């Protein structure tokens, strides 16, 4: 029996391929194989002989079987290795193309601004872009003769012959949304109003359409000091660095007192950095909402007070992301969209960063 074992183990070890293994299996443990035949002979043995030979034969059969499968696996591995060696691809060839889309900086920044103000309890309000002159001017304490009205380079809509109503305007700011929101919801109120605004001006730094976000907070005791804190919190969160502001007295018909707001910045080698240095950059107009504006929006100015502000979305986008030219925002040059755009998954959140 030992002969049989060493014979088959050595034959198995020498087998060259799967068919040789199969031949050996038939030869050794197949129905008519050498070991199978021996097992048949067990019946003819005495019980004593059988007790010795039976287990030995079974052990031999198991050993041969496992040697067969081990060899078979080894041969398969070798064959696979051989095949894989021939399956070489030039992986430096380009991948299949996938288009990569982008989010426009205006959308991205609008979401950033919304995320910050949402945390401070401001909702996002929207309104018509074609406005009546009442909502765009009169309700904001800008009567017809007011010089500010002429200075705003307003776009007017066409009126048909015989239609004597004053022409509508393309809103020159998103302030009419403030009025409509106050009319609809009363006080207290906290909203931001982002959106497109229009002024008839086109040069290096002006486009006839641009984007603005205004903010409004009305309550019992909101002060200009609250405004300053709110804006500093906003700018710090937006620029990702502690940003100081400087308030300067100014005038807007719809706020009183009014302030122009500068943010702290430095210019180093022509590069602007917000939140450091001792320079100041004018970015925003603000103030305490004029009692006449509250009245126009049907809110009692003896009961309620609060602040409003307005800032250019395009402008703060340019400041944060180093975008040089406003006009390019609206040109849709693919190279610009891809360079300054944002990934679809880059959703601004306070917890993930802006």
């Amino acid at each position, binding site marked *: 029996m030992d002969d049989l074992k060493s014979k088959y183990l050595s034959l198995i070890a020498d087998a060259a391929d799967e068919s040789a293994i199969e031949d050996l299996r038939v030869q050794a443990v197949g129905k008519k194989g050498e070991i199978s035949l021996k097992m048949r002979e067990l019946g003819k043995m005495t019980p004593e002989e059988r007790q010795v030979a039976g287990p030995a034969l079974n052990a031999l059969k198991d050993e041969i079987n496992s040697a067969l499968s081990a060899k078979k696996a080894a041969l398969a591995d070798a064959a696979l290795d051989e095949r894989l060696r021939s399956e070489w691809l030039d992986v430096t060839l380009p991948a*299949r*193309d996938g288009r990569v*889309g982008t989010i426009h900086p205006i959308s991205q920044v609008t979401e950033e601004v919304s995320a910050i103000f949402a945390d401070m309890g401001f909702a*996002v309000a929207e309104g018509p872009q074609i406005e009546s002159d009442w909502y765009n001017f009169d309700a904001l304490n800008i009567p017809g003769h007011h010089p500010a009205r002429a200075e705003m380079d307003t776009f007017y809509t*066409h009126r048909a012959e015989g239609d004597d109503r004053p022409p509508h305007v393309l809103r020159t700011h998103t302030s009419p949304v403030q009025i409509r929101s106050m009319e609809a919801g009363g006080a207290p109120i906290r909203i931001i109003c982002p959106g497109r605004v229009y002024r*008839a001006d086109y040069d290096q730094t002006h486009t006839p359409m641009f984007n603005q976000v205004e903010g409004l907070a009305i309550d019992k005791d909101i002060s200009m000091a609250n405004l300053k804190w709110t804006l500093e919190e906003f700018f710090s969160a937006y620029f990702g660095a502690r940003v100081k502001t400087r308030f*300067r007295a100014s005038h807007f018909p719809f706020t009183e007192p009014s302030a122009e707001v500068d943010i702290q910045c430095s210019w180093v080698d022509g590069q602007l950095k917000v939140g450091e240095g001792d320079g100041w950059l004018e970015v925003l107009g603000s103030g305490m909402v004029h009692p006449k504006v509250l009245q126009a929006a049907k809110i009692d100015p003896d009961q309620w007070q609060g602040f409003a502000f307005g800032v250019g979305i395009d402008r703060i986008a340019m400041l944060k992301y180093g975008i040089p030219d406003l006009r390019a925002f609206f040109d849709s040059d693919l190279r610009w*969209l891809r360079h300054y755009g944002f990934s679809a*998954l880059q959703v601004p959140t306070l917890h993930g960063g802006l």
Partner: protein
Amino acid sequence: MKFTLSWLKHHLDTDASVDEIADALTDLGLEVEGIEDPAAKLRDFTIAKVVHAEKHPDADKLKVCKVQSDEGETQIVCGAPNAREGITVVLAKPGTYIPGLDITIKVGNIRGVDSFGMMASEKELELSDEHNGIIELPSGEVGENFADWLAANDPAKVDPVIEIAITPNRPDALGVRGVARDLAARGLGTLKPVTVDPVPASFETDLKVSIDNDTLDGCPVFYGRLIKGVKNGPSPAWLQDQLRAIGLRPISFLVDVTNWFTYDLNRPLHVFDADKVAGNLRVHRAEGGETIVALDDKEYALQAGQMVISDDNGPESIAGIMGGAETGCTEETVNVFVESAYWDPVQIAYTGRALKINSDARYRFERGVDPAFTPEGLEHAVRMIVDHAGGEVSQVIKAGEVPDTSRAYKLDAKRVISLVGMDIPESTQRQTLTALGFSLDGNMASVPSWRPDVQGEADLVEEVARIASLTKLEGKPLPRMDAGVPKPILTDGQLRQKNARRTAAALGYNECVTYSFIDRKAATLFGGGDDATMLENPISSEMSHMRPALLPGLLRAAARNQARGFMDMALFEVGAAFHGGEPGEQHNLVSGILIGRTGPKDVHGASRPVDVYDAKADVEAVLAAIGAPAKVQILRGAREWWHPGRHGKICLGPKKVLAVFGELHPKVLREMDIKGPAVGFTVWLDEIPTPKNKSATRPALAAADLQAVERDFAFVVDADVEALTLVNAAAGADKGLIADVRVFDEFIGGALGEGKKSLAVTVRLQPKDKTLKDADIEAVSAKIVAKVTKATGGTLRG
């Protein structure tokens, strides 16, 4: 508004530096736009004395000078004819920049003689055009700074010019005196009194001025005096200097006087040449159609109602805006009538705008000139004219009355603190208002006549806050409205826009923001371009109409990119389009376009031209992302800018269109200069129904344990049978069992013959309670074939 430091000091007694004044002005709301300080470029020049001068050994016209400076004696070669021993000169040492030459002086050697610096001429220092010789000073110590010497001895030469921006509410600051008053209130000096000693009348004139009754609301008061025998001519140097410094051209004394008071006291005046005035003067409203040549030599046609000053010959002055050329002063003028009137700001604004005249007078009257100062302003001007140009003065001629602008508002000190958020003591608040010219009676503050902008309590708050300095304001936290984690704030519509935008970008589209206005042709191609959406004053014909859709703007953008050599693109925009010219006649859209190929040609052969099914895939993804219902109809018959056979409307019923996708009409593309076919989609965001179930809980997942079975069927149908009809028919064969029907092949023509096509579908059967047996599958297959045959008139393909 420009003024010089010395002009300011005419009204303000102050030691403050230019920088201190500039900082205060900006903080006060009189924003400094620029400071021009002529002394700045002279700081490096010092005074020196020529102690010895002799002819250059090798040059006839040069002299070798020994010059005593603060650093000892030095040698300078000089070519000036007046360089000689004993004169006091202005020295530029080596290393000094010479503004008039734009060079920096170095140690030189001129024909063999070393020269250590330069003695400057006035031209070299940009003080004048004088270049005949070097400056000889009448005084000055060796080593003294030349800029300081000028400031002490010839201040006009180094008078800093400050330019400030004036907000529309501050007409008082359009005069230097108003600026000085603000600075004094801030504590930067003391406001000097302004007084005038009126010239006594020495004759009585017959000249009369009248104001028509219907014009009194526009011109409540008019003062004037006649001066006989003046001698017009150039103004004195100081007056010319001041006018030039602020960018005005001196014309003649009489004209310069009016300009000077316009800027000094914000008191515009007009001077008529009395010899050219026929008869009396009458302030009245134009009937319309009269013409007048104004001082700018342009002819203006007056509109009915506009205020004019006429004599017997007709209009001689556009009231409060610009005088007439006919009665204007010239060098020869000897008899003048000086006008000081008050004009209503609103009427001046309308007339100025209508006539398109921008004058200093209009600018001031439309913002508001001090009405109470009208008579005094006249006396100031008359006094200056007579003092300089002589003449006899008539009695004061007056029409109307100075309007009563007196009013008072309550100063609520607590409210001031509550609004500003700064702790400004009541005494300081009162002090501020007093310094600005308010008078306080108890807590009622009477407004000075020069502050027409102050119209309520809130304006008092602004004055107090402004003078207290908003720069000093410190932030205070804005308390949350509700404690705890902030609530979501976006509306369904806003979320929808955001999700549509992010989805489109994820699908590979680049977001554009295009102008809301577009040219008429493009607007017309997309159903707009009518007069209701037209702008009255577009900045160009490219931007004349509000866009009726987003597609035209995207196509224009695509054409621009194609012109730059980018032929394949995916662009989208989210925004409003306008279906009318009334507020609210706008709707929110998301549109995308695909042009060219799916990508550049590539090694895998994956690049192919974009087609309708790309647009369909993308619009379906966008719709899914914004929660549109999954069960929709696809209809035809969208607007004319779509390819008639290659588009679909995604609808909930025939009238509720959620979106359209398809190929754009080739004619539209040609009109818009787009090369190659383009596909696209539009989603009407506001049309998507808001899901009724707002609960976060999902329905339980029904995932059957039994294995699903798929069977394929191919049908031969007429070519115009729509796949969706077939699919719906098949799916309807056994709704409980059929989980999905998917078209996987379309074959047209060939052996099928003309007008026929084959559509192959895979039907997925999902048993729920028992495993399917062959007989079950046979049965449902037969039903499917029957249903499809009935619905499409087709046959099962053998």
